[in-house]
């Protein structure tokens, strides 16, 4: 160090010589910018060096002189006589101060001159202020969580800054951190300018450094970036359960993380999750964040995914034909991914049954009170998921079934006591997957269905003859008959005349089915069988001439091979199959194909207890068809529910068998 001091002293002396020569020039030729600049540079260097190497008094002396000459540089006319005077006076003192041993008298003289210079400075307009010593706020060394946004301007790379270094520096001072890198502004390769920076970062850190130190990370880029540093907590917010997911999800929702809401409400979240844990222990759900999505977007997505699946299926067929190993391998990989993609996409349209439970609970409560019956509502498997459209359609039927259970099923507390049953009646809603269906069971431990009453009622409503002989099963099925359940005493909530026939109809609308099991005195169970999704049909491909049609499997009751001659023997559009006369529709005729002379099949479909036979050429295969609507121009053609694209790329129209049955049975009547 001592060597450096010596170097500086030597340097200083040279500078003083320069100063002297500038001053001589000044006296000789008057003011010029060269001279002024020259003097400035001397003062600047002296000041810089003296402060570096501990020549404090020299630092003090040259400090204001530097400022003065900085001002004079801009406007030479400011070089007043007082300035020149103090400058001359400083020369000798500077020489003296450029030493490691300075006498007290020199120090005193320097102070005097420094005062003089100060006066000159004050009289000079717009003088730069002295160094104000920064008051360091006593910073307590407590740890805090911060939200930091660092969004560098696109051209930040131009001044040699690397934004990543800044991010890294920030993470270095953190105890815990989570970074979200925002890359959506990175353009495509053709548009990419490699001299630009497109990425920005949102970072949550937990750190014990002073706020000043965090600020200092961004010291060089303050003007070249958007920077937000906000304290969010005295605790490490990153330890809150699921918070990383919450942050990431918020990041996906918008351009910026909604940190104000996420972190302000987190104390509430902690409380809320504690409360809900105590409440319901049957569902072990994690806290899921929900997003509202426009159903059109969802439909679009499903559509595209379905088309992808179709295209992929065709690709696969082609790959297998080609027999090229590598090609086949790629095709299989794509198949795997597409299948998963399709499952995921479809699962988005599924919501758990739990979502409609609240209505049921409410109904049970209201009816229990109004009917003075003590009813317990139990649920099982409510996390089972269904297509949203299906759920929306079945909630009314289920409400009706529950209503019925309480109205007619569950006995009063007294009666139950007499019967040796627990005073509290139970209605149970159980839901589970069964194959490719969802089953929802609504059961009660009430009185069950009195079959005699059913028979009596059916006779009185003219649904059956009083002599009609019906099996138990058939009797139970009468419940679904139209007109059967128009209630005589209309309970307040069922006033709309929603009968059991409507229940069955609605369930049929979503291609579902409903069964009753009942035991007198013990209770009844209604089982709804529903498809997982409306967009996919399990169907049977049939062919007529060169075209394909699809019939939903759920409606098919039987398939027979028939001889064409049987059609000739038909009468009144009725054909005899299995000893039964059923109406039929001959697709070749219906769609105006040529006559067939070969083999034909009849597919017997059912709807609302009515059977109709659909006569086709061949049964081709079972197929899980993705149902696609026909489009607005075909709305009037109601014989089809839609169309589907088969694996080989050909089109199959999906028959609306319900409609066919209705039409045909109407015609006959």
């Amino acid at each position, binding site marked *: 160090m001592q060597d450096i001091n010596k170097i500086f002293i030597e*340097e200083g002396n040279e500078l003083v010589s320069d100063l002297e020569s500038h001053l001589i020039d000044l006296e000789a030729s008057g003011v010029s910018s060269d001279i002024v600049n020259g003097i400035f540079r001397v003062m600047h260097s002296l000041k810089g060096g003296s402060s570096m190497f501990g020549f404090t008094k020299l630092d003090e002396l040259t400090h204001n002189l530097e400022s003065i000459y900085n001002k004079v540089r801009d406007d030479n006319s400011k070089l007043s006589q007082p300035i020149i005077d103090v400058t001359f006076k400083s020369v000798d003192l500077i020489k003296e101060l450029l030493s490691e041993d300075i006498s007290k008298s020199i120090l005193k003289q320097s102070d005097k001159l420094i005062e003089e210079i100060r006066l000159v400075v004050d009289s000079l307009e717009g003088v730069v202020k002295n160094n104000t010593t920064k008051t360091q706020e006593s910073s307590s060394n407590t740890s805090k969580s911060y939200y930091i946004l660092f969004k560098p301007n696109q051209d930040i790379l131009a001044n040699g800054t690397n934004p990543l270094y800044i991010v890294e520096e920030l993470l270095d001072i953190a105890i815990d951190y989570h970074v979200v890198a925002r890359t959506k502004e990175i353009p495509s390769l053709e548009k990419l300018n490699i001299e630009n920076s497109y990425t920005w970062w949102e970072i949550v850190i937990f750190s014990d450094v002073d706020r000043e130190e965090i600020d200092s990370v961004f010291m060089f880029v303050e003007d070249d970036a958007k920077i937000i540093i906000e304290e969010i907590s005295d605790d490490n917010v990153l330890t809150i359960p699921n918070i990383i997911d919450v942050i990431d999800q918020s990041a996906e929702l918008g351009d910026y993380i909604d940190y104000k809401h996420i972190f302000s409400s987190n104390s509430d979240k902690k409380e809320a999750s504690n409360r809900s844990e105590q409440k319901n222990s049957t569902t072990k759900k994690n806290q899921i964040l929900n997003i509202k999505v426009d159903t059109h977007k969802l439909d679009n997505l499903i559509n595209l995914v379905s088309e992808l699946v179709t295209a992929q299926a065709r690709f696969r067929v082609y790959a297998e034909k080609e027999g090229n190993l590598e090609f086949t391998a790629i095709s299989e990989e794509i198949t795997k991914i597409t299948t998963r993609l399709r499952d995921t996409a479809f699962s988005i349209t599924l919501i758990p049954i739990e979502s409609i439970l609240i209505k049921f609970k409410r109904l049970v409560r209201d009816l229990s009170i109004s009917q003075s019956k003590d009813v317990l509502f139990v649920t099982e498997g409510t996390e089972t998921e269904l297509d949203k459209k299906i759920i929306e359609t079945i909630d009314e039927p289920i409400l009706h079934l529950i209503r019925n259970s309480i109205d007619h099923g569950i006995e009063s507390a007294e009666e139950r006591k007499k019967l040796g049953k627990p005073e509290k009646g139970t209605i149970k809603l159980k839901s589970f997957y069964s194959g490719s269906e969802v089953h929802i069971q609504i059961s009660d431990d009430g009185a069950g269905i009195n079959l005699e009453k059913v028979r009596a009622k059916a006779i009185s409503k003219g649904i059956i003859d009083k002599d009609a002989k019906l099996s138990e099963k058939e009797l139970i099925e009468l419940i679904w008959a139209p007109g059967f359940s128009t209630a005589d005493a209309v309970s307040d909530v069922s006033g709309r005349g929603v009968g059991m026939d409507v229940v069955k109809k609605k369930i049929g609308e979503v291609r579902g089915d409903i069964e009753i099991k009942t035991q007198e005195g013990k209770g009844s169970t209604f089982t709804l069988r529903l498809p997982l999704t409306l967009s996919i049909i399990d169907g049977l491909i049939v062919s007529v001439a060169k075209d394909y049609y699809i019939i939903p499997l759920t409606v098919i009751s039987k398939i027979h091979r028939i001889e064409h001659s049987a059609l000739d023997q038909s009468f009144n559009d009725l054909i005899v199959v299995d000893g039964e006369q059923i109406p039929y529709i001959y697709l070749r005729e219906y769609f105006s194909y040529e006559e067939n002379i070969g083999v034909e099949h009849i597919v017997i479909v059912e709807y609302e207890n009515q059977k109709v036979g659909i006569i086709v050429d061949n049964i081709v295969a079972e197929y899980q068809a993705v149902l696609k609507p026909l489009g607005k121009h075909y709305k009037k053609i109601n014989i089809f529910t839609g169309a589907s694209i088969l694996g080989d790329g050909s089109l199959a129209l999906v028959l609306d068998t319900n409609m066919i049955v209705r039409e045909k049975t109407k015609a006959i009547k």
Partner: protein
Amino acid sequence: MKKILIVDDSESIREIVSMTLINEGYEVLAGVDGVDAMKIVSEHDDIKLVITDLHMPNMDGIGLIKELRASEKYARIPILFLTTETQADKKLEARKAGATGWIIKPFIQKRLAMAVKKVIK
């Protein structure tokens, strides 16, 4: 070892900067002004950082920064400039010219090392 170029007309400053940075494990090249600096720059392809004073004869710091930014080789090299606190206008000018950051004089060695670490490639 990473190469750093220090440019200052004051020998003592050049000395102290060199000493500090060599201590930190860097290799240090030194120039006396902007012109000198450009000469050194043309002879070396692998300089990672330039530290320059602003006030120098022949070509001052601002001029050097502009030259470097206009060059092909070193257009995006990190550049730190030395400045006293009172020189707000110069600071702005230097940044406009394309400087990456600055070091305020007087500085302690630790601060110099920190600033270098912040920006060096």
